[in-house]
């Protein structure tokens, strides 16, 4: 389990461990409410729409569309070594929004609605982070 001590290392908790565990298997999940049927992210122990606690993790298709982005040119460590990188908001086709980064895409090819597909970055400490790349 990550300690969360570093600024780029997420700190999972009892409500989110299963979501991060699935990522280690390279599966991107979201919560599906068994009462109102609506999907939700980030994962919580209940549905934020209707407050039902009857939620089940469901695997996302991995397909999404680029909603907005910013090419980051300045940041403090540990991100300083990564600039420039593409901070982005991606909308999954399931109707869910994620903060992420776009990899393997020149800045000139970034555009509204760019189709992207999930990829998985395995961190040295055992956590896996979902990132996105152009679909084709």
């Amino acid at each position: 389990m990550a300690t969360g001590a570093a600024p780029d290392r997420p700190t999972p908790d009892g409500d989110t461990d299963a979501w991060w565990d699935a990522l280690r298997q390279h599966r991107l999940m979201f919560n599906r409410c068994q009462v109102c049927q609506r999907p939700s992210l980030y994962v919580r122990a209940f549905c934020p729409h209707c407050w039902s606690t009857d939620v089940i993790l469901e695997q996302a298709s991995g397909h999404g569309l680029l909603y907005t982005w910013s090419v980051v040119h300045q940041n403090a460590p540990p991100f300083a070594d990564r600039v420039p990188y593409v901070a982005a908001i991606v909308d999954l086709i399931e109707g869910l929004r994620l903060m992420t980064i776009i990899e393997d895409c020149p800045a000139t090819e970034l555009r509204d609605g760019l189709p992207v597909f999930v990829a998985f970055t395995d961190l040295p400490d055992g956590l896996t982070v979902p990132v996105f790349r152009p679909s084709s």
Partner: protein
Amino acid sequence: MASRRVAIVGAALSDCGRVPDKTAVGLMAQASRRAVEDAGLTKDAVEGFGSHGALQPPIEVAENLGLRPSWVDSTNVGGSSWEVMAQHAAAAIAAGEIDVALLTYGSTARSDVKRQIRGSTAAMPTAGAMQFEAPYGHTLVAKYAMVARRHMIEFGTTADQLAEVAVAAHEWAAMNELAFDRERLSVADVAAAPMVADPFTAKHICLRTDGGGAVVLAAEDIARDCAKEPVWVLGAAGAASHVSMSQWSDFTTSAAARSGPEAFARAGVTPADIDVCQLYDSFTSTVLLILEDLGFCAKGEGGALIETGVLRPGGALPTNTDGGGLASCHPGMRGMFLLVEAVRQLRGECGERQVLDAELACVSAMGGFFSHSATMILGRH
């Protein structure tokens, strides 16, 4: 229920800019003493007190000032916190719970970086909701830049239109001897500055200064006997949105679209009635969304409106008349400075930068990452 009118009767800044010899609490205490003196009151009149602070906020700061308030507030929704506290204080005064409230803010954000007490970027938590953002390095600048990008996508807004927000702020700062950066800028200067998070160069981003301020609110019977002309709280409203950018459904519309219309309705005025604006300018895109969301123009038309120079001295919508966070003062949370400058404009105290015949002011603050909006309408009558 709200039986008494409420006014801002005292307003003051602490030392601002570079203040390496003071602490945040020291700046809050200095601003507080100045604001109470500005009102012509004494500390014994202060029953309500609001501030942030390290230990059991706001009690550590109240204790420093020798106050034992019966009413306290330390709402923290980011930079709009002081508009929220002012709304709360006005409600408590209107209801007769207290007669006088003092609100203060102070930060040594600039000197703390110089002394390496804090880093140059805000340290974000990696737990809770932020566990889903921590891996990616979405800086505060990038979050506001992504808002600008989305506005460009949907409405064709340009970086040069946004740059005019900074140009106008620097025009005002040139007339404010207390402003941190009094050098005039052109749109081309903004574009030529170092790129920080595309499309934002460094000149789309607020300053990092030291500074503080304080305001005193009082019931109308006290306000009429104070040293300065009362500035009446005519309407106030707030609205919370999100802390996680993933939980914001439309990056072109902020919570100001809820706080603004409500504040105007409570004041019984419209944007067309406003003489002077103090709109939170943490970034150029903050002003863009606030202008549209408050109804100064239709959604999507903010870029075209800004481009005409309305925000500048002599423009139809004089905005951020002290130079704003982009050119005058921004120690991390700017809401207090909006209130102080609005009061000074309505009192006619602004010298060269005074907006003629300013009777009605609109203050609108934005906290966090478009997380919270608070709007307040102030007037001379």
